[in-house]
């Protein structure tokens, strides 16, 4: 299996070199957090080259843009804080308090506050990004991990890895309104743009649960089967759903593939080969590409969402973890 991955990766690189010239000029910048290197790689999505490597705090993982997308926020887990950088100049701006061991975070649709999962304390910490203050701490299940906010901003979701649930938390009262059982070790939660569905990946369970947000129940479970790959190696983590909710992409961890799913029928249409141990994925704002972080092969795969295939591998730092992309 290894051999196949290598040779295919080489093929992808070769194919990438041929395709680059014909790409449209969509120069976004993608930020990749490198967990082991304490750096963030900045990729130009026109040239597909790393144009900057930012030195940041220890064990950078969760990463997103805030403050009108002018700020880059990074969970530096081993420093127990969130670092804020200028997304254009890459200059350090400030630290935000985060509670211990911040891993994943999500921003309220209004731009503030920020909800942070504190894995070691069974808490979700609510942080005012502008003031740099902790607003609230909400107790949740064992090992909180995935975070999502509903598009209307009324509900924040937290998944707990050992309790195996998605907790629905009211963003005004911080009361938990529902706890929905999913499969083992839920990692990432993602709303559809209309807010009607919540998709939750279960890394050990090997499934993605689709929750009807109004009914608060699981309406479908997506399972994956790849010839030649054992069931244990299929470990769904990152989820990206396009804006009109027709297509979804799910990163499958050590299966080294991203599944393409018809978001209406929930059927898996294709598996795209990417780098090794793919965890987090993100669309470019025009939805023409998906970038994946491949933690074991230390690279980012670029998927062409039209042709549904990987066309470029970009070497980044060690253990690439999170990805976020500017919209200009």
């Amino acid at each position, binding site marked *: 299996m*290894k051999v196949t991955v290598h040779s295919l990766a080489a093929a992808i690189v070769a194919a990438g070199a041929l395709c680059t010239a014909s790409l449209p000029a969509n120069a976004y910048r993608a930020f990749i957090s490198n967990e082991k290197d304490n750096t963030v790689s900045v990729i130009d999505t026109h040239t597909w080259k790393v144009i900057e490597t930012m030195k940041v705090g220890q064990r950078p993982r969760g990463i997103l843009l805030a403050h009108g997308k002018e700020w880059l926020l990074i969970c530096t887990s081993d420093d127990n804080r969130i670092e804020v950088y200028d997304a254009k100049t890459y200059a350090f701006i400030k630290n935000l308090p985060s509670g211990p*061991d911040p891993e994943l975070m999500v921003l309220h649709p209004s731009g503030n506050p920020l909800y942070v999962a504190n*894995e*070691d304390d*069974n*808490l979700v910490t609510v942080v005012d990004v502008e003031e740099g*203050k*902790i*607003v*609230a*701490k*909400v*107790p*949740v*299940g*064992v*090992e909180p991990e995935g975070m999502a906010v509903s598009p209307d901003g009324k509900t924040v979701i937290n998944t707990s*890895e*050992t*309790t*195996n*649930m998605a*907790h629905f*938390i009211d963003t005004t*009262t*911080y*009361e*938990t*309104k*529902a*706890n929905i*059982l999913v499969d*083992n*070790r839920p990692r990432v939660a993602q709303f559809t743009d209309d807010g009607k569905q919540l998709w939750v990946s279960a890394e*050990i*369970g*090997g499934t993605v649960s689709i929750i009807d947000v109004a009914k*608060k129940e699981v309406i479908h479970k997506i399972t994956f089967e790849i010839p030649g790959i*054992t*069931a*244990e*190696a299929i*470990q769904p983590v990152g989820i990206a759903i396009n804006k009109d909710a027709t297509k979804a992409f799910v990163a499958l961890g*050590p299966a080294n593939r991203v599944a393409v799913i018809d978001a209406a029928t929930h059927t898996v249409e294709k598996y795209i080969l990417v780098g090794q141990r793919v965890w987090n994925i993100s669309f470019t704002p025009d939805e023409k590409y998906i970038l994946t972080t491949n933690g074991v092969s230390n690279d980012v795969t670029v998927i062409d969402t039209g042709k549904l295939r990987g066309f470029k591998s970009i070497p980044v730092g060690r253990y690439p973890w999170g990805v976020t992309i500017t919209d200009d």
Partner: protein
Amino acid sequence: MVRNRQQRHSGLRPWRHRLVAVVNGSLAVLAGLISICMPSVSHGVAQDAKVTTISIVYASQERERLAPLSLLDFRPPSEGYDGAKLAIEDNNTTGRFLNQSFAMGDMLSAKRDELIEKVVAAAKSGTSFFVVDATADTLVALSDALNGLPAVIFNAGAHDERLREEDCRANVKHTAASYAMLADAMTQYLTWKQWTRLVLVSGPQPEDKLFAEALKRSAKRFGLKLLAEQEFVYEAGSRRADGGFEQVQKQIPTFTQEFPEHDVLLVSDVANQFGDYFPFRTWKPRAIAGTHGLYPTAWHPASELWGATQFQNRFQRLAGRVMKPVDYAAWMAVRSIGEAATRTNSGDPKVLIDYMLSPKFELAAFKGQKLTYRPWNAQLRQPIFVATPKIHVTVSPQPGFLHQVSVLDTLGLDEPETKCKAFR
């Protein structure tokens, strides 16, 4: 025992508690409140909802053990039990959302016959789940004594192959790894390293012999060459004799001098009586592996792989010490019961036991993949660390060892080889 209760179980907190939102500025005061109100989330659960209570007993056999060579290797008195206790807490965090409560009393600790008597009495009065740390003989006797009762034993402490093979019982599940699984994890790594020339030193204790046999079988299975074998004879119980190192540092080179040229010297000293004498004292500078030096283990107290950091921290907070393999096996046993109860929404022992052996069952246990029970002998499949005392070196199965069902079945005896008939 499984029963329904009209009111909340004493171990649970009121269902209708509010989640506490801590307002800026009063964090310190309210930090305490959070811990009090933590298990407080509800969803459509009425105050008087029926709570199903699932009782679990942890039973440990008192036995004479030789004092280990190193002071660092003495067993904590609550070894194993603390792991089960952590799993009870973990089960209850999920359970409170589902009206399920898990309860475990004090550790049941006694000598063989008394232990069997007490476990049978508990089973007769309604307890169905027993996590047991005992010798192979005791386990077999206990499982036979429980025959006919709706009870299941989780073997958390015995690695003996025969419990999974000719002496397997339908009412016993094994969360402890077998000697064959441990040996295969080790030799797969030696194969990967291409350290193929081996010599073996084993101790005189019965368990030393069992692990030595497993190493030999495994070496043969993966094509390594066992070139020589020696027994290490010692007088047990003299570990505190003062000034022993002068003699030991002369004795071990002499003992290893006659071995043929080898890459690795394997040591089988499960009883912890002499294995630590070998690293850095051999005639030639050679790697030591087996029970000492580089060793296979189902759990490593320093593992932070696959999100284990929080798991290790939770255990440290509960037990005030690091997690041992027996604690881990006990945790997996109690979590298996919890996972089955969660997924079946039942407290009926028969439903839970059947579910655990069904293809639907899967356990997340900080090993980077789902763990399942082998249907032919109820041994929990699991990746095994190959480690030195401070940190893991690798985790087996190694890359390239393939299997048509699960790569985890490259560790230990596989279905076509099994002598177990209890599950047919």
